[in-house]
């Protein structure tokens, strides 16, 4: 998490919180009218853009997760994905495709993670039904064992336990514009799926019986949602680590639930909230680096931001309620 002081002409060097946001807005404006080519983006901008993408897609997915009370399954998915990553590394190492330490092919990574997501969901359901275990126990059992397996495989295969740590914590400073592309592909795919199946998701979330009666399979939507979760976490694991994805999936929807009563508005608020937190988080990291000369982990700061923002929303909404009641 050592911050690479890349170029001498780094535009954000020495900027404080507000200056950062201001400059960011200006440069984004220039980007949108085409004055700034994409490959000239500074690393901070890539960070912000990636995090915004992650926050968008995870807020969308997370809203449904929270409403369906499946966040713990998402938690276990984010752990088991490590095995998916290992498999992907393994496959590319055998096919001899990429060189050395660079990331394996994104398709392989995506495929492996989807597979692991499926396996995790299936195993958990299997243990609950066939093994006659409580749901929480089977969830805990499956993901911890798979994760332990993943950690050991990583340590043995790569001779280095650093990847494991990095996958958990994330390393936002090692991003480049290729990650940007994939994050947005997944975000758009998620948005597209939700727009396409909005009615079905809505229905299967709130009334499983009705869904079945109308001839849709609730299981199918569960697996679809899980596939989306694994896709989201795999694209963002390099940027922010799987745990921050989790924070992005639970925090914004919870905050949005306080403010909104309808599903549309909840989704909207959650996305907005996530995006704001991502931007503020990166700005704070830069601010701390400038003012106190301490390089903090961006992923950690963003999740702290989410916590703080959530608490603020809590207090604000509670005082709102109180004033309404008095009136």
């Amino acid at each position: 998490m050592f911050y690479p002081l890349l170029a001498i002409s780094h535009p954000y060097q020495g900027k404080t919180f507000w200056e950062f946001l201001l400059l960011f807005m200006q440069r984004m404006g220039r980007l949108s009218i085409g004055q700034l080519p994409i490959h000239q983006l500074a690393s901070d901008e890539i960070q912000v853009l990636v995090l915004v993408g992650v926050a968008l897609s995870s807020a969308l997915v997370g809203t449904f997760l929270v409403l369906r009370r499946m966040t713990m399954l998402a938690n276990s998915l984010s752990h088991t994905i490590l095995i998916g990553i290992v498999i992907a590394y393994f496959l590319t190492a055998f096919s001899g495709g990429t060189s050395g330490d660079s990331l394996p092919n994104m398709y392989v990574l995506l495929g492996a993670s989807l597979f692991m997501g499926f396996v995790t969901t299936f195993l958990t359901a299997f243990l609950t039904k066939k093994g006659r275990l409580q749901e929480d126990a089977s969830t805990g059992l499956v993901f911890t064992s798979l994760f332990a397996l993943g950690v050991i495989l990583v340590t043995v295969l790569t001779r280095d336990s650093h990847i494991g740590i990095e996958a958990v914590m994330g390393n936002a400073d090692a991003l480049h514009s290729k990650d940007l592309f994939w994050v947005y592909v997944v975000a758009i795919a998620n948005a597209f799926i939700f727009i396409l199946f909005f009615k079905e998701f809505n229905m299967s979330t709130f009334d499983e019986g009705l869904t079945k009666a109308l001839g849709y399979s609730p299981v199918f939507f569960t697996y679809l949602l899980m596939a989306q979760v694994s896709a989201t976490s795999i694209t963002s694991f390099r940027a922010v680590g799987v745990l921050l994805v989790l924070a992005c999936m639970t925090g914004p929807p919870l905050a949005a639930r306080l403010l909104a009563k309808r599903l549309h508005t909840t989704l909207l608020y959650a996305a907005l909230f996530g995006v704001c937190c991502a931007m503020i988080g990166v700005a704070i990291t830069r601010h701390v680096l400038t003012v106190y000369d301490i390089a903090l982990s961006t992923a950690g700061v963003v999740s702290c931001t989410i916590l703080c923002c959530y608490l603020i929303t809590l207090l604000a909404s509670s005082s709102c309620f109180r004033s309404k009641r008095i009136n």
Partner: protein
Amino acid sequence: MLMCFSASLMGVIVFLRKQSLLGEALSHAAYPGIIAGVMFAGSLSFDEQESWISFFILCGAFCTAWLGIKMIHWLQEKWRVPPDAALCFILSTFFGIGVTATSEVQFSFTPLYRRALSYLYGQAATMTDIHIVLYSCLAFFVLCVVIFFYKELQIMTFDQNYAKSIGIPVKKIDALFFILIILSVVIGARSVGVVLMSAMLIAPAVAARQCSHNLALFFVWSAIFGLFSGFFGNYFSVQFTEILSQISPHARIALPTGPMIVLVATTICILTLLLSPTRGLFIRFCRIAYFQYTSTCENILKSVGRIDPDRSFSLDQIKKTQQISSLYLRWILWHMKRKGWIEQDNSSFFLTQSGKARSAKIIRLHRLWELYLSTYLGVEADRVHRSAEEMEHILTPELEQELSLLLVNPTQDPHHQPIPPP
């Protein structure tokens, strides 16, 4: 080892309260505390004294875990956040704080950074005597409290209202219980690591659940499984590290102990899930297969005996009456031959004396049940067959006697077929 011991004891309670994932949230919430402890020790320049550092780490971890649990409760009760979302939210954000603090530690207390990281996945290799004394004291404390409050815990886990009504201070014991969980998580964090600590709460308890129906035994088994996995996990991790260092001496890999312990625990768990005498999957599967086998045997005997017990029959004729694959049928026939129920003459089979007796008995059971249904339960005669098809395999000799007494030694079933005498 000792750490897993206390964790597995607490795991039983957590498991019975259906809060298995609480451990996950707690262990993650303890992480910022560990880092804070490291930072505090670093800022007071206790770099050398091992015992002080671990003391601070324990304190820090305890505090943040406590804060985390309080926040989860607050969110659930005050704001009606769904419990899983509250857990997930707290664990990820607290861990985020921990990650932030870690980067800070890396920056300002570089020598302590490695130690902070080792708490993620656990590293038992660097432990000294002081650790052992400290941790065994804590584990012993947990054990004592569990034994001392055994009765209260028992009543409270199974029936909260009853506990309240007989005057047990539920709130206080609840708090004590949470303190114990936090303690065991904090103790375990050193060897298993915060990321996987929850497995040590869950896996031994699940394994023990398969073996016992009694709370005391449940505790004992769980503790045994915990100890076992702790010991072998450590052993394997040391062993493999040696092997790996022999293969590649330059790499200096240290296999983390945590994942190894967890893997051992899960292996035990899977084994018990498969093989436990009453609830095991494999055992259940065997029992089903055996029942299927005996039913098929009896069905074959019955279908032969109903037509004519003395006539010989061929493989194809049987195949028409039974809906099973021919391979399985051949295997069953071979078994029946070995039991002396049928004999083979070229390609045709015929019943032996004992086979005939057995066949008559099954037909008798079938028809007795049909008669019972129609006379006592008032079921119409054309509907009793299907039920009798199933019951004929289940009726015991005692039931048969009772039935024949009840029906006064009948000779004819509702379809006017003769009932063979016993």
